[in-house]
């Protein structure tokens, strides 16, 4: 009798694992479909066969088609996927280590800091045009984003600081950097202002294979390191004292995770600008679908983020045919109502 029950327990746990794996695989497919649709749509009127030929037999299409597909569409579409995944993971781990459902790169000011860095570079570097947009802006955005993340952590190190203190600190930083951006906008010339505004809205245009490679490598390394701590991160959500009693060095784990997440976020936002709500929404979707066993939670947060940004990218192209509007507008437009709907629908039943 007892034997069968143990067996039942094993089977139930394995069933749960299989169900979660199925969810992950399903979302992988959704991302692939969305990626495919993203590549075949765009302002240039290319037929489906043309795009497919350009992708799989690059020699046999015109150079123009080749350039549109392989130099513009494919890197941009992949950029959407990687940035979305990065933001999804960053949001998931921020919510985990700060034990707060509202934590995300956006709400804690990291995106605002990146915007400030970019705006500063644009204002200061308006003379040397070539270098400004390709190097100076991303570097400055990266530095400011890292600075913001580390400030958040420094706030957390203050004696007696709780995770709530960190959240409040993050929100304050968000507004400080936002006001900085507003000041720079006020000071900027008309051309620079346009560039700043465009950057702040978040844009995938300007994606290329080099940027993509950087993001992919950073994501692979940071995610790998996070994945090596899956059980500890899962246990962290049992609460501070409980995790500590399990022998987890919570402070060190939080610091390490925050640094990894900061690098991940800063890399993602320094090339694309502020893409809001993904870091907030993706982990919530993942949590509802597979719970918080981080072996599934991290991949699914990444995939949800990737899917959301990819769909948003598609929408920015389809909504007004012939033009592409900044993606940050689309992610906020999709993300905010979804987030509100989740909160209302799930209410008390979780978090």
């Amino acid at each position, binding site marked *: 009798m007892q034997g069968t029950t143990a067996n039942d*327990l094993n089977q139930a746990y394995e069933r749960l694992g299989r169900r979660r794996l199925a969810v992950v695989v399903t979302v992988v497919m959704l991302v692939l479909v969305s990626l495919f649709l993203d590549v075949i749509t765009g302002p240039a009127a290319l037929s489906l066969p043309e795009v497919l030929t350009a992708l799989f037999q690059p020699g046999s299409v015109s150079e123009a088609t080749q350039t549109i597909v392989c130099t513009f569409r494919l890197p941009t579409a992949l950029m959407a996927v990687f940035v979305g995944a990065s933001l999804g993971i960053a949001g998931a781990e921020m919510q985990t280590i700060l034990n707060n*459902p509202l934590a995300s790169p956006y709400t804690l000011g990291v995106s605002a800091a990146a915007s400030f860095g970019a705006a500063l570079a644009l204002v200061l570097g308006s003379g040397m045009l070539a270098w400004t947009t390709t190097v100076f802006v991303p570097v400055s955005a990266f530095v400011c984003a890292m600075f913001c993340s580390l400030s958040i952590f420094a706030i957390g190190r203050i004696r007696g600081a709780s995770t709530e203190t960190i959240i409040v600190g993050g929100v304050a930083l968000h507004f400080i950097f936002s006001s900085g951006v507003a000041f720079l906008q006020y000071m900027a010339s008309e051309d620079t202002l346009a560039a700043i505004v465009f950057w702040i809205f978040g844009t995938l245009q300007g994606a290329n294979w080099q940027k993509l490679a950087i993001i992919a490598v950073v994501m692979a390394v940071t995610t790998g390191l996070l994945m090596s701590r899956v059980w500890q991160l899962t*246990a962290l959500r049992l609460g501070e004292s409980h995790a500590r009693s399990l022998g987890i060095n919570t402070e060190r784990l939080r610091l390490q995770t925050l640094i990894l997440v900061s690098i991940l976020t800063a890399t993602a936002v320094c090339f694309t600008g502020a893409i809001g709500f993904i870091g907030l929404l993706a982990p919530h979707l993942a949590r*509802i679908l597979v*719970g918080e066993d981080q072996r599934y939670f991290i991949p699914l947060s990444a995939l949800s983020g990737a899917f959301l940004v990819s769909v948003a990218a598609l929408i920015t192209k389809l909504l007004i045919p012939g033009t592409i509007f900044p993606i940050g507008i689309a992610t906020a437009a999709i993300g905010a109502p979804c987030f509100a709907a989740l909160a209302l629908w799930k209410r008390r039943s979780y978090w």
Partner: protein
Amino acid sequence: MILEASDISFSYGSHQVLEDVNLQLKPGMTAIIGPNAAGKSTLLKCLSGMLRPKGKVRLEGITLTTLKQEQLTRQISFLPQEFNTTAVLTVYETVLLGRVHQLGWRVSDVDTRIVNQLMQEMKLTDIADRYLNELSGGQRQLVAIAQSLAREPSVLLLDEPTSNLDLRRQYEVCTLIRRLTDSRGISTALAVHDLNLASRYADWVYVIQNGKLRCGGEPQSVLTETLIAEVYGVEARVTIGQETRPVITVLGPVPVASSDFQSERDAGNDV
């Protein structure tokens, strides 16, 4: 294993919580009793190595501070009183997390076997795939205890493990802890408020009052009417029950400091 505290003191800032406490946990069950804020939880945290008190805590003669975190966690399992979490985890996953340091990417058969056995022993199989947020306070407490035991510790420190349980569950859980303590040779210490639980299940009872160890020993020598009146300010009748263990019947609170109580009652009798 024997866990021994010698002259340990601990303060939060300027607030002294423990003062020169000496005690020894041997294989078997030790109850730590005392009023609220007496320092019971702090004592358990010091014994677990989570807090570093002045004085020495030794496990089999080895000072805790010289042990690696891994060894410490494997030997000593401390269950904090509060278990408030919003984590979206099932009961099974939560118990499994007790083995956080052993778990690999694939959960091994050893880990699942240990968890399965515990889940059965603690009658948690029916709620194994329920999520934590669907549980009652008492069920959560059982899950937390199961998680503590899943660590297979040599020393088990439980901070009020029965505070949210109904009467029957209190006795069931204590019986279970008692049985595992005996069969696995664990040195168990539990902080409890219910003196009858302490009396019935513990081999030794230690009384903490205002951060000091007031006395310790076998239940029948420690749990006396005088001590209960002095420590808790409660008038109680102590009778001898099964296995010569004291049974405490609380008659009512003593409204003023216990030393004044006797004279006041005498004065009342005179009227």
